[in-house]
């Protein structure tokens, strides 16, 4: 089922530890390797710059009061696919990022998986 994600290194940017733990558990269940979780935008930018082996990322839109978009730009520049996670609903994303794969809190495992597949361009079996 989740072969497309096995062994993939997925960066998790999420400032709330319980939510981060949930995402990590979901990723591990899918055979992926969570990287992080990272609780601030600055740290996330460092990881994106320094880690050459990232396959994808899950980005909380609002990280400790800061918008995550600089991290999204850095990932985009490196061609690394990513998924936004947000509690703000559909209207929470600025126009610039509309259409980007997004999961709404609270999320199901299936929603996380589907969004990652979409971002990675992997066909879901």
């Amino acid at each position, binding site marked *: 089922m989740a072969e497309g994600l096995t062994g993939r290194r997925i960066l998790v940017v*999420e400032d*709330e*530890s*319980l939510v981060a*733990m949930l995402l990590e558990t979901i990723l591990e269940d899918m055979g992926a390797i969570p990287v992080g979780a990272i609780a601030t935008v600055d740290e996330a930018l460092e990881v994106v710059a320094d880690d050459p082996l990232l396959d994808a990322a899950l980005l909380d839109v609002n*990280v*400790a009061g800061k918008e995550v978009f600089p991290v999204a730009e850095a990932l985009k520049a490196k061609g690394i696919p990513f998924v936004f996670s947000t*509690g703000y609903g559909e209207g*929470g994303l600025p126009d610039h990022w509309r259409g980007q794969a997004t999961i709404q809190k609270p999320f199901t495992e299936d929603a996380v998986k589907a969004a990652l597949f979409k971002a990675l361009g992997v066909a879901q079996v």
Partner: protein
Amino acid sequence: MRALEQAIDLAAAFEASTNPYMLLTPDLRYAGMNAAYLTAVGMQRDQLIGRPIFDIFTGGEDAEGEENLRQLKASFEKVLTTGDRDHLALIRFAMPVTDANGVTTHEERFWSASHTPLHDAAGNIVLILQHTSDITELERLRRSRDDAPLVSALDMILGGGVMTRAHAVQEDNRRLETERNRLVEMFMQAPGFVAILSGPQHVFQLHNDAYARIVGRGDIAGKTIREALPDLEGQGYFELLDSVYATGEPYEGKGASVTFRPEGSDRDISRNVDFLYQPIRDGAGKVVGIFVQGHDVTETVHAAQRQKLMIDELNHRVKNTLATIQSIAMQTARSHEDPKTFAESFQARLMSLSHTHDLLTRSHWEGADLRAVLEHETAAHGPTRIVLNGPPLALGPAAALSLGMIFHELATNAAKYGALSDPDGRVFVDWTVANQASRTLKVIWREVGGPPVEAPTRRGFGSRLIERNVRHDLAGEAKLSYASDGFIAEFSIPLDRDSQHNG
């Protein structure tokens, strides 16, 4: 002798004057008149002398005639009561005219008259002298003008026909003046802003204090709006006024945003206003100005924006909380195969979170005191078994929620495996705030008198939650020591981080 000669001369001059004059007794009967008067009214002297003036002048049949008669009577009465001269600037009075066939008709004439009391030596009024000017031609000329450029927007707005009526109702003039002043006064003191703009260039004819306050300028009277308020350029208001003036269609704005640069200031001030541009028309229906009125609704608009932000934020927090609870449920489920113990454990964690929410709600989500958070999480184990010792310390919402969950896990663990599982066991919680420049909270949770401690073989959700929460959410450090004589947890947490926001 000289006085007599003078009297004769005066009487001769009176008779010879081309201006109509007549004298009335105090009971308003004709006492005398000159030749010009007789010509003007088309009567003989003997038809008039001794007769009441209002037998002769009936004013015609229409309502305006009656009104004019009333005005004339009122003027005489006023002279008789006050002993002062009274003027009638304009009065329409139809005069009886008998044609060659002996048919009498009324011809409309316009008059201007002054009534002067003549007193005897004792100061009693003995006669009233009427000096009349026939201004029919002048008045007809004035009325025939199609456009009336002298009619101002202000005159038109002050009760529509007020000024028009004032021409006909001379006695009311002073009352109308008062009324007009009162209206102006009402404009000036109105809580909303009011301005009257005259002409196609929108010249400020009148504006009240509220208007001057909102535009931040006082020197606007007599200027066009473009001269007076150059800071409005480019905001669309000039164009709106031009359009209202050109089309005669009123315009209503709701919550409109407008930016002013008050005189002498280098800062823009943005306000929101509800306003109305109402065209002012003259008697012929032509737009002569614009009545501007409205009020500042900035606070209301801001309140609505704040409310929307708060609802968005609330929704965001609820979604985050739901995700947190989802995580708690999932992690709890993984360490409890038995649905019964899962339910107990999950509920306890839910109640802990809920308690901290209650604490925060009491402070309108500004924060909570550390001791209060601790008391909430440890109360279930009895007040004497957990000893709290430390200074009052206000925690932000995020820190309060994290520490609430952390202390819940510690207390639960102590009750299951640690000091609180033994009737003689105790927990000491001590905290201090070190380094006042960059404040750091140090907390030590020390268990004594419990069963011998063994380090767990695998890390459960509780200890992972504690460590992750301190490091991740609070950017602090956590040290859990499984010393054989009692479990010790030590935390070091920076207090003055820029943001404690939960995203």
